[in-house]
């Protein structure tokens, strides 16, 4: 046995020293060309789509695997990539392949041949206010506070009135509202028998918690700000300075140092953002969902900025709301003013968001 061990050891050692350099070459993107009998530098294409399982054609030839897939051993040059999935419009683009580099066609949003629109609220609605931090939206009909509906987006229940029947604010008229991205809170300015009222509304619970903060806001501010999850401090901006309001203690701290205001979380700045009335950056931030006037478009954020696909028309002068967690777009139908939804993203993006962001940042840097 010891002799056998020695023999096998040296055989395995030999195998290691033969395979290891080949493996490193393979790792670095070299592929052996049998015709030329030497190693050539190659690149790869990583292709993924939303929804997945689309067939991938590379210069017209079907790739062995469906999306998400890595197509290896590609000599440098331009390749026409086509993704095809039943029920969806094919996607095609020409991408460059560079040696030792990966060309990532990541999370391409495939557009269905026909959008499946669902009625959420058949009664006429004049606008929607999305509150993503509270996983809900508010549907407004005219400016009557009594008609504001609260719709929780994570369950299938019917919309309910934001203000309960016994609320003293139901006779009011909505004048203005303030939101902060990713926050479950909204501040509404309403007129109630000729008095301005400011209401702090917390939508985290099934029944919204409404608190009158009118005494704390002495005059109409230019701007309101609060940290998305801070239910205590509110900052009111006036031409002369900034007040901090402690909602719980009902206290005003006038003219605070602006440096003490927590800065809003900075997001990476994308280049070439198209002009729009509303813009949502979706699908691992590689797709723009934008509303311009009464039309909604999808656009690939990373590649061809001239190609945008119109997906629907909405009621003029109304907002839309894209809710990231269920991939749905909420809008007011242009014909009968009903609150509707369509599913834009059927699947969560395949690549985890941090990696996708890394890739995107890389492209931006380049």
């Amino acid at each position, binding site marked *: 046995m010891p002799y056998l061990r020695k023999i096998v050891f040296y055989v395995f050692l030999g195998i290691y020293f033969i395979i290891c350099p080949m493996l490193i070459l393979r790792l670095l993107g070299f592929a052996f060309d049998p015709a030329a009998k030497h190693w050539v530098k190659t690149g*790869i294409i990583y292709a993924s789509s939303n929804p997945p399982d689309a067939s991938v054609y590379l210069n017209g030839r079907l790739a062995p695997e469906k999306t998400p897939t890595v197509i*290896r051993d590609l000599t440098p040059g331009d390749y026409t990539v086509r993704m095809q999935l039943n029920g969806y419009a094919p996607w095609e683009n020409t991408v460059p392949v560079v040696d030792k580099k990966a060309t990532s066609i990541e999370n391409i949003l495939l557009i269905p041949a026909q959008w499946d629109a669902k009625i959420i609220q058949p009664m006429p609605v004049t606008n929607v206010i999305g509150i993503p931090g509270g996983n809900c939206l508010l549907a407004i009909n005219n400016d009557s506070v009594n008609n504001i509906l609260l719709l929780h987006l994570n369950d299938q229940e019917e919309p309910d009135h934001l203000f309960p029947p016994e609320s003293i604010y139901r006779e009011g008229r909505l004048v203005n509202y303030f939101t902060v991205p990713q926050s479950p809170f909204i501040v509404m300015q309403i007129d109630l028998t000729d008095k301005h009222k400011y209401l702090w509304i917390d939508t985290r619970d099934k029944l919204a918690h409404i608190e009158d903060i009118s005494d704390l806001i002495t005059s109409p501010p230019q701007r309101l700000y609060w940290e998305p999850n801070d239910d205590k401090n509110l900052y009111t901006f006036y031409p002369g300075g900034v007040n901090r309001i402690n909602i719980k203690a009902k206290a005003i701290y006038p003219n605070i140092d602006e440096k003490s205001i927590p800065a809003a979380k900075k997001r990476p700045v994308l280049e070439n953002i198209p002009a729009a009335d509303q813009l949502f950056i979706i699908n691992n931030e590689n797709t723009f969902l934008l509303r311009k006037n009464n039309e909604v478009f999808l656009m690939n954020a990373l590649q061809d900025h001239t190609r945008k696909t119109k997906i629907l028309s909405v009621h003029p002068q109304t907002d839309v709301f894209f809710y990231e967690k269920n991939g749905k777009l909420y809008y007011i139908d242009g014909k009968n003013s009903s609150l509707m939804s369509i599913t834009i993203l059927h699947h969560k993006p395949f690549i985890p968001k941090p990696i996708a962001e890394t*890739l995107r940042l890389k492209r931006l840097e380049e």
Partner: protein
Amino acid sequence: MKFNYSKENLKGFPKRLQRILEIIPGLTSWTILIGMVLTSIFFPFTGAIIIICFYLWWLLRLLYMTLFLILSYIRLNIESKTDWMARVHGIDDIATYLGFLDFRHGLLHFRQRLSLWTHRKEIHLLQNSGQIPPKSNDIYHLVIFPILKEDRGIIEPAIEALSQQSFPPHQTMVVFALEELADARIHQDVNDVCAQYRQHFFECVTVIHPANIPGEARVKGANVTYAAESMTAFIRTKNIPIDQVIVSCFDADTVVSRDYFACLTYHFMITPDRFQASFQPIPMYHNNIWQVPNFARVIEIGSSFFQLIEATNPEKLVTFSSHSMSLKALVEVNYWPVDMISDDSAIFWKCYIHFDGRYRVVPMYVTLSMDVVCAANWLSTIKSVYKQKRRWAWGVENFPIVMRAFWRSRNIPLFDKIRHGFKLFEGHISWSTWGFLLSIIGWMPALFAKHEFASSVVYYNVPEIANTIFNLASLCLVASIILSLLLLPKTTIRHSIFKKITHALEWLLMPFIMVFFGALPALDAQTRLMLGKYLEFWVTDKHRKKQTP
């Protein structure tokens, strides 16, 4: 070479050298781990290349080990049918025996022929050595059981197995090396068992090891050394030559197979230079195998596998756990170290240095069974298993002492110094690092990918190559599962096929085990040695439920 195999009482250069050598294993492991983490983060291309080279090395080593695991299992299976007593009697009269073997050869099955072929080779080597083995009638066995917490439930099966040996038990002396500090209940149990079984043996005694003897640490080695010294004196009073006595130092829960001492006697007789050899059986952990949590079962089967693999490489084999050797050698090297935890491996190194490298371990394809670590509940078992593995990994304490001895020795060949030194060092380093590299650090280049690396071919190729390697490695896992099922005790008939299937699935815990009961305790032990925070002996929890027939 005369060498004080201890870290104690050093002065001057040897003390400084000892300390430096204590630092080296831990420092190396930490350098590898931290170095790989930093390389993965700051030089991901280099990190990815190193990781793939390592994965390939690991795969080939795994395949290599699996191959010899299978061969070793086949050998164990072949030898399980061997009539060791017949061979012992045969060696007593070799001339007649060889003729008998020639006659039998044609009647045997293939497996038996293989066994016979090995047997003939061994006889041939003995004859070529010109050494005459002692007669089996003159050979005595001295069996030492160190006891601190083990009660009657643990020690009775062990001594019962000794009383039922195919080798005549009246040539066996049993000694219970009992710590003075043990509970009165344990003292009573040991005395009762001793009295009950004395009639079967040449002698069965209890030797109480006094507490706090100067120069001793609270370690097993001190206890068994005290017992062995006492028994050596006893043996001399009986006029039995110590070169005809084989000492077996067993854990208290060791239950030997019926042919263990016949097999040991055979190997003692057939081995040239038998006084410069230890005899290592294959440890199995079957005593309570179905009573312990699944992870503990997989770990101990893994330990048996490791010993099976090691058995195929006697040139580098080191004694582990329960083992045997000649009393003559033991006396000559002044018994086990009395201040070291890893007495099982330390005794080999002590002998190896004393005999200037002319000492070896002879593997025996015979099993003995011990308990899997098992505490009162699941969480306590996790802690106990971890502590046991850390104690095993504390074998790294031998490294600085062995290296110091190699430094001083002029008679041990340089090649042997390098070979043994490298194996000792590399074994401990791979023990503490591979689990982390395979399970965690290997994925770091991809996890920390940014900028240039994330858009490179390497980023996408690492997972592909790694997956291929891991898929190939899973073949070894399948082989391990099959062998573990084949090695399960066949006498435990009440355990159904369902239980065996569950056992097979337990092997999926391997990645978790590799980190938490492999690499982590080893790194813990090396770090303690590096920082000079020396480990104290800790007795393993071994609980056994009462078996129902």
